[in-house]
């Protein structure tokens, strides 16, 4: 495969190091997902199947969070699919860059997530963009799944409430959302999404408030220049 040649290329070494480091960091998220999934009633096998087949963290966390609170399969699926939709935009970006036989592109599509796309678009030339996509995607895939298995086994062995692990999910979500609050539009979408969710919790089935919170993205409709940021997004 091409990636062997890519690994030997000295100019790509920083890309390889950064990509593998990022993958290892994501492994820790995988552990917290595994623990949370079994706490919410999933079996170890279901938790692992989700990470192997779904492979998009935010959607998996969302689905497990809704099921853990007593939501139905349909409502868990709704919120998780809204989050999965953004990968379509990443696919649009990566589909133009990743070439090769259909089989390889089918694998590439599964690896099209936040981390692989972000690492790829940060590179200057096409070779580095492709290398960053493949190495980040594959290392995140490996570490995410190892982490999930470890977390699921760990979650089966302890009582999550005693160890305060029910707070681990919202804490993880805070960590995920923080960088998205740098832009004014991001902050408004976050505030609106939060309000919609809290307002609907007492009146709608579990999971529906999460789905409806996506309506807050409509603040993205007006053109950029009508929403000046006080400081530039970095």
């Amino acid at each position, binding site marked *: 495969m091409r990636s062997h040649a890519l690994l030997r290329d000295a100019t790509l070494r920083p890309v390889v190091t950064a990509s593998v480091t990022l993958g290892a960091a994501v492994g*820790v998220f995988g552990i917290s997902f595994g623990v949370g999934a079994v706490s919410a009633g999933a079996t170890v096998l279901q938790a692992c199947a989700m990470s192997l087949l779904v492979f998009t963290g935010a959607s998996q966390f969302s689905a497990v969070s809704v099921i853990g609170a007593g939501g139905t399969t349909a409502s868990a699926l709704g*919120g*998780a699919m809204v989050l999965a939709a953004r990968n379509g935009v990443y696919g649009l970006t990566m589909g133009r860059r990743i070439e090769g036989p259909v089989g390889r592109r089918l694998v590439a599509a599964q690896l099209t997530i936040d981390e692989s796309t972000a690492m790829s678009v940060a590179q200057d030339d096409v070779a580095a963009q492709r290398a960053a996509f493949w190495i980040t995607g594959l290392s995140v895939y490996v570490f995410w799944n190892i982490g999930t298995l470890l977390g699921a086994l760990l979650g089966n062995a302890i009582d999550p409430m005693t160890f305060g692990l029910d707070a681990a999910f919202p804490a993880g979500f805070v960590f995920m*959302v923080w960088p998205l609050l740098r832009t004014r539009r991001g902050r408004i979408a976050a505030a609106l999404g939060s309000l919609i*969710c*809290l307002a609907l919790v007492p009146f709608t089935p579990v999971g529906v408030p999460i789905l409806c919170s996506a309506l807050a993205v409509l603040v993205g409709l007006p053109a950029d220049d009508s929403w000046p940021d006080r400081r530039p997004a970095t």
Partner: protein
Amino acid sequence: MTWTLVVMLAAGAYACKAVGFFVLGRRALPPALERCLALIPAAVVSALVMKDTFSTGQDLVIDARVAGVAAATIAVWKRAPFVAVIVIAAGVTAGVRAFS
């Protein structure tokens, strides 16, 4: 957790990725739609923070989790690494729960 959820989410999530990769090809999305899609995580993940901190089923509640998530938010603001954020959230929540 049902296998139906696992299978349907797997199919749906892959379909989302593949639509961009194969179907839309080189076409660009309208800028307004791209801006809205880019805001999905900010809106939905914030909602998940609220749901997992302030609700149990359909009830709005204030319990030990609020203290844990508040401590975690301060840790995130102070740029603590992910592991530290999770340990702080779990530790504070477990502590408040044990002593209340």
